[in-house]
């Protein structure tokens, strides 16, 4: 069986875009906004490609769930070096639990030894899909990875946790979600973009997978966060310390 890595990616509003909230509070303006591959997912793909380049895997498959526009992001991933792409076509956004169920269907088909995902998508900031997938698959998870070392049938993963770094050993197959410091994704060069157009991209209608796109959560409204007011300026260190003392902020 081919040693395969599946990388899940999500199309999101580009991280440089300053988002705008719709006046009716129903969501965030997406029309005409630049979309990109979720940056954490790009790191996941980069790691998969590096594993393949040092002969740790034979094939890297990228998968996404979303409307037809997502193919642009899948092509970007193919240009980065993924071998083929799977596009589960769904016009409505899927919640993490549904996404995990769909990914599980793809995993059953592709039989990867490793699944890599970003630790969260920068739009909804849920940070759930990888863990949910691991639970449904009944396999290990290692979240927030900053280092991945593959061994025979297992992996050592260093994780960025609140207290510092933690290393786990997990049996493979496993789901690993990646953090910022794992690697720096490569830039895509023009010849690769041309080559990527010929790589296989398979579209699967969501209905064909037998997963109901059920929505569990209802969005009631989306609003801007409360803004902090700009405060005062002080002239020097003495004035700063005096102000802090006055406000009682230097003693508990």
């Amino acid at each position: 069986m081919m040693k395969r890595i599946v990388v899940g990616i999500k199309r999101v509003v580009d991280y440089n875009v300053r988002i705008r909230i719709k006046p009716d509070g129903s969501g965030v303006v997406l029309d005409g906004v630049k979309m990109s591959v979720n940056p954490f997912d790009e790191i996941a793909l980069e790691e998969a490609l590096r594993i393949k380049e040092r002969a740790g895997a034979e094939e890297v498959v990228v998968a996404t769930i979303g409307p037809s526009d997502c193919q642009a992001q899948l092509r970007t991933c193919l240009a980065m070096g993924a071998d083929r792409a799977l596009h589960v076509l769904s016009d409505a956004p899927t919640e993490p639990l549904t996404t995990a169920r769909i990914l599980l269907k793809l995993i059953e088909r592709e039989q990867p030894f490793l699944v890599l995902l970003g630790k969260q998508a920068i739009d909804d900031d849920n940070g759930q899909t990888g863990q949910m997938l691991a639970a449904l698959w009944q396999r290990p998870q290692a979240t927030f990875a900053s280092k991945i070392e593959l061994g025979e049938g297992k992996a050592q993963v260093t994780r960025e946790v609140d207290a510092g770094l933690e290393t786990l050993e997990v049996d493979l197959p496993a789901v690993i979600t990646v953090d910022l410091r794992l690697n720096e994704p490569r830039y895509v060069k023009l010849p690769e973009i041309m080559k990527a157009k010929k790589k296989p991209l398979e579209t699967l209608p969501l209905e064909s997978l037998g997963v109901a796109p059920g929505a569990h959560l209802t969005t009631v409204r989306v609003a801007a966060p409360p803004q902090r007011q700009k405060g005062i300026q002080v002239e020097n260190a003495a004035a700063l310390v005096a102000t802090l003392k006055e406000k009682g902020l230097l003693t508990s």
Partner: protein
Amino acid sequence: MSASILIVAEHDGTTLGAGTARCVACAATVAQAEITVVVCATDASAVARQAAALRGVHRVLTVEHPIHAHPLAAAIAPQIAALGGPYTHVLGPSSTFGKDLMPRIAALLDTAQVSDIMAVEGPHRFRRPIYAGNAIVTVEVPADTKVVGTVRTASFRAAGVGGTAQIEKIDAPVEPPSHTRFVSTSAAKSDRPDLQTAARVISGGRALGSAEAFQMLYQLADKLGAAVGASRAAVDAGYAPNELQVGQTGKIIAPELYVAIGISGAIQHLTGIKDARTIVAINKDPEAPIFEVADIGLVGDLFEIVPQIEKLL
């Protein structure tokens, strides 16, 4: 309708994590909540006593198993999922512990998760940040569905102590899987206050210029009894270790006093501090975005100002 809320305790084997008291405070804002805290550990007694002392807690359950010597999500999740049936809500802190664990529990319970709860509008209605805190969404979970969620701890004041909940030891409901094993941790032990819960935080950015210069902040922090934080730029430049990072991809904190030194104030950093009571900014650049949110700003050279402050304290 009353709510029955199960909170998964975060701990290091001896001490209850500060986030748990904040989860209790969040749970207590749900009307008529009966709150249970569950502690999974090898020996849960010390942690269970601390949880039982939190005001608002009705009951503490302990599950003891050798595998719970370390907080492995793959081992804890099936225990909680097996216990979760009768509860209307299952909550954990939005720390790396809770972020790792709770979605695994939610999937086992076949339910969605509400991440980073910052306010409770009703037993099934919550506010949470999206787009790095640039928007706040109000979401509703169907009334007949169990709520699984992580609590954005910076949004809640810790529940006080003085409670006397009963502690009940139960048998581990399931035998956890062995496919995930703890190897090591590099957590640096420090006498300074914990960044996540400190009342005062001194934080440094790229303008410090070197790890040596960053040391100056530790001195200032020690004089103030403060924790030390850092911007992502300072961490990426190697001036400070990862675990000090404050911001959207690091720690989200809400101290009484936050002093940003040589931090320009990128949006992802501001996301991590916007619940701070008072923000002080010291920066050479008067146009730095940090001044837009600072309560007290001081424009000037940090290498002159920081030693001056230290002398004045």
